[in-house]
């Protein structure tokens, strides 16, 4: 539905690239999470998707339409909301929707009323936006993004500034969006719990590069994690390797999901390992995020430090 293809973007020559060959695909009907810390490149990627930022290389296509060739064609299929949405404070919510939808060719009154009711703003929609709370502005932002009905909805840090109640409400609303409108959703956030609870798949960006692309729940893909405590680690390593397993951080065993843990445990005991604890661990998105962030960081260090010295030497 939405394909991001080898995006490169550097805002200034001296600055590091904001995006460095980022690619991923959002499938029809799924909720896709785009994760990364501040400056990871999420907003730049979204800016390119919406045609607000022009990439140095690469492209984004939505429903087969390229944003570089036909920006309005892409935007006809998209709705977007941004962190801290800004409206014309001196106009009512309704007038704001009229102003914005005029740029999409206009929307019938009935459809606007339905969407306003869906986001729960019908009682305040004719009040000035200046009197709205942050949560109400967020709901108005959602209403404008849904008018006219988009195929893909881009939510850029939608819960930024919301209280815990507002975050929970918004999370439910994202699930309802898919149920009620069948819309494909790309959710950009740095709130891992939020993404973990609603997204089917996630991509993690770090330093302008994609460092992970995969499941957002029941993480680990085709592998399962077990926490263990054993007296003889060598025996454990030998037994684990026979089942395609590997030891992580000295206390976690990663096994293919096809491996039967009872058999592995029996083999460990047969090898003479004094096993005191062996339990299944559910890897959270936070575990994954920290793991891929650290490994990406260590890779960056490994490759950048010698290259820096080499570059200096090479220049002489």
């Amino acid at each position: 539905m939405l394909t991001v293809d080898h995006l490169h973007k550097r805002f200034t020559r001296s600055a590091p690239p904001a995006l460095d060959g980022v690619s991923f695909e959002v499938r029809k009907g799924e909720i896709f999470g785009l994760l990364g810390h501040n400056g990871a490149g999420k907003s730049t990627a979204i800016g390119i998707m919406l045609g607000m930022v022009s990439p140095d290389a690469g492209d984004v296509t939505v429903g087969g339409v390229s944003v570089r060739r036909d920006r309005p064609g892409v935007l006809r299929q998209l709705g977007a909301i941004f962190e801290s949405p800004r409206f014309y404070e001196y106009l009512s919510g309704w007038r704001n929707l009229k102003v914005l939808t005029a740029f999409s060719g206009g929307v019938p009154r009935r459809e606007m009323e339905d969407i306003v009711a869906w986001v729960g703003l019908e009682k305040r929609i004719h009040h000035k936006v200046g009197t709205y709370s942050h949560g109400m502005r967020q709901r108005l932002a959602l209403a404008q993004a849904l008018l006219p009905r988009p195929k893909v909805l881009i939510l850029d840090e939608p819960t930024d500034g919301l209280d815990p109640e507002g975050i929970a409400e918004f999370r439910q609303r994202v699930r309802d969006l898919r149920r009620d409108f069948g819309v494909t959703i790309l959710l950009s956030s740095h709130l891992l719990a939020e993404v973990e609870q609603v997204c089917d798949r996630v991509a993690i960006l770090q330093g302008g590069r994609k460092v992970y692309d995969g499941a957002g729940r029941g993480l680990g893909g085709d592998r399962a994690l077990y926490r263990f405590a054993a007296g003889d680690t060598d025996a454990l390593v030998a037994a684990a390797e026979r089942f395609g397993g590997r030891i992580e951080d000295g206390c976690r065993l990663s096994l293919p999901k096809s491996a039967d843990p009872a058999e592995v445990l029996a083999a460990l005991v047969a090898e003479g390992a004094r096993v005191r604890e062996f339990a299944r661990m559910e890897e959270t998105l936070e575990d994954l995020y920290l793991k891929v962030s650290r490994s990406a960081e260590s890779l960056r260090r490994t490759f950048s430090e010698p290259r820096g010295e080499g570059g200096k030497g090479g220049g002489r």
Partner: protein
Amino acid sequence: MSFLRQLGWELFRMFARRRTYIGFGVFVLVEMLMLFLFTRTGVRQGISRWIEEVAGGLDTYFSGLTLAFLIIAFTIFLLAAPFLSLVAGDIVAKETEDGNLRLLLSRPVSRFRLLAIKYVACQIYALALFAFVGITALLVGIYERGAGGGFVVWSPEMPRVTIFDWNEGLARYFGSLPGFVLAFLPVTSFAFALSCLRIKPAAATIVTLAWLLADFILEKIPFFEDYRHWFMTPRMNNWLYLYYQEIPWPAVTETAAQLVGIGLTAFVIGWVAFEQRDIKT
């Protein structure tokens, strides 16, 4: 049709701002101040003497229309440039700064079209301002001097004093109001072009006013006489042609073409700059 709808909402948005009413209100206040100066202070004697000299018949020619002309000329000279450069300087830059523009740009509309709507809206806004100022000045003039009588006009930029009867004067007066839009086209267009750059809204206004002031002062200095054709402010007096006894249509057409050319050039520069920009938070 959709262009007109979008333009309509852009105008609605501009006129819904409190600043519009405050701005228009300030124009009325200055008109009142001018009325007070021209009718209740020593300035009145000067004007009366001048009218007696050039037209005779003070009661006939110190009419509501003559007073309205004096009021509008001074009010627009004092206020129009700052106000319009503020409006045009804000129209893109302020929305970028406030974040409204991101919502507009996430709509299926080209940047050119978005800017064209804003630019046209800006000119219509200027027309509404000049119509408002013209009508209120006339009402003030009629309130003070009554309807009817003659109309005497002179400005330092005009070769001689011109005199009209009431009906002809009224037609010339209303005819000159759209001329103000054309006269201020370089101001609104220059501020608009600056507004399209990565710039603070206030900077767009200040730079426009600084350029206008420099142009106005330098053009008056005799050393620059040979370069007068490069200055903008002499062209901005084109509305005065409407008050010549015989309207010099070739000159009207020539300056109008120049002003439109300058305005469109500024628009294109602003558009090209805006098209290159990456809009991010």
